[in-house]
């Protein structure tokens, strides 16, 4: 009997979601090379029993199809050209993205930004957030910085928008998350106005709420 890959892959993506699903964000991170090898292997193992994650794996692979294996966190060339020059000049957030090698676990909590460095999340994206204690936490941009925060559902439905924050964290009220289904995704980004007037922006962070 000949074993072709494609019919077998199609069987895997037919299945339903496993009960203890790792979530599509984790699959994305695995394919993007953002997880450690061990974590990536765990995701692959899980996908055997989870149709949803097999579909996520197939989907994520397509969105990373052009990425060279050794530089998986790099944008395709055409997309780099499309980046606004202002963003490139301010481009700290982008450097933050490209500075990581493939398969290296992202450890935002160990990378502290200072001054006008990039704003990073202090929360691992793979970690689901509690609806009742949804504390978003990011690196301190230095004394006198004022933060603006935008939180949306992962389909961009706005949830929270606040400005003038002095602390580098914000607790999202459970009521604001009412529009997010259990296990649903949120996206958030933060910007900091520094005392000298400069604006520093984070990339967008994605999380799942607890099921």
């Amino acid at each position, binding site marked *: 009997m000949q074993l072709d890959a494609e019919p077998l892959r199609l*069987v895997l993506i037919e299945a339903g979601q496993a009960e203890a699903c790792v979530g599509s964000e984790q699959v*994305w991170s695995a394919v993007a090379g953002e997880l450690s090898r061990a974590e990536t292997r765990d995701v692959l193992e899980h996908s055997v029993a989870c149709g949803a994650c097999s579909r996520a794996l197939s989907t994520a692979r397509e*969105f990373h199809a052009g990425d060279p294996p050794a530089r998986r966190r790099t944008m395709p060339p055409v997309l780099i050209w499309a*980046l606004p020059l202002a963003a490139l000049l301010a*481009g700290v957030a982008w450097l933050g993205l490209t500075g990581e090698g493939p398969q290296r676990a992202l450890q935002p909590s160990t990378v502290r930004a200072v001054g006008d460095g990039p704003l990073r999340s202090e929360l691992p994206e793979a970690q689901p957030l509690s609806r009742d204690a949804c504390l978003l936490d990011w690196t301190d941009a230095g004394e006198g910085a004022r933060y603006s925060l935008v939180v949306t559902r992962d389909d961009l439905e706005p949830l929270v928008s606040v400005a003038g924050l002095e602390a580098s964290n914000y607790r999202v009220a459970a009521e604001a998350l009412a529009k997010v289904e259990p296990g649903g995704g949120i996206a958030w980004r933060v910007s900091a106005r520094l005392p000298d007037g400069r604006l520093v922006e984070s990339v967008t962070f994605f999380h799942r709420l607890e099921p």
Partner: protein
Amino acid sequence: MSCIPATLEKRMALRPDDNKAGGSTAQADRPAREALEEVHDAVRRAVRRACPRRLTGQQEDIVQEAMIRVNRVLEERPDSIESWAYVRRVAFNAVLREIERADRRAEVSLDDQGAEPLPAPDPVLDPSASMALRKALRECLAALARHRRLAVVLHLHGYSLAEGAEILRGSSKQMANLRYRGLADLRTCLEGKGVTP
């Protein structure tokens, strides 16, 4: 065919930052449009790859719905510092969400019909045959030695030997060996269960 709205395309072409980056409008708007097309192509490819075969007839609807979500992102955040990385991520979520929605719609319409599904010769489309095959495949994959199983799963999802070797921390040659042995074990196991994919 592009499903990028003309207004959006025009606005993308006129983005001042792009003009700065490219030096002229003609140079600047081409990459933005190409980038949009690239996302659209990726959405189309992803839907084709990730759509269960029971939803084959709805693939184009799924692509369109996903692109509507993506276009909303571009409408709302055209100048975001990481908009392209963000768009790609949103497109990924949109594809999965639309496949789930299409699946739910299909379930509802099957319930509405109240009829038994027509027998299908294709095991993937025939629910009972598909379930038997899926069960056998899972059991056989689970029975493989871990590294062989991982090598097979990577292979099924189109990972190259070099990519797989990087994840399994080995050489391409070791990867090829694991894949070969894993597929052989899998074939023997499936044959033992009397199922053919």
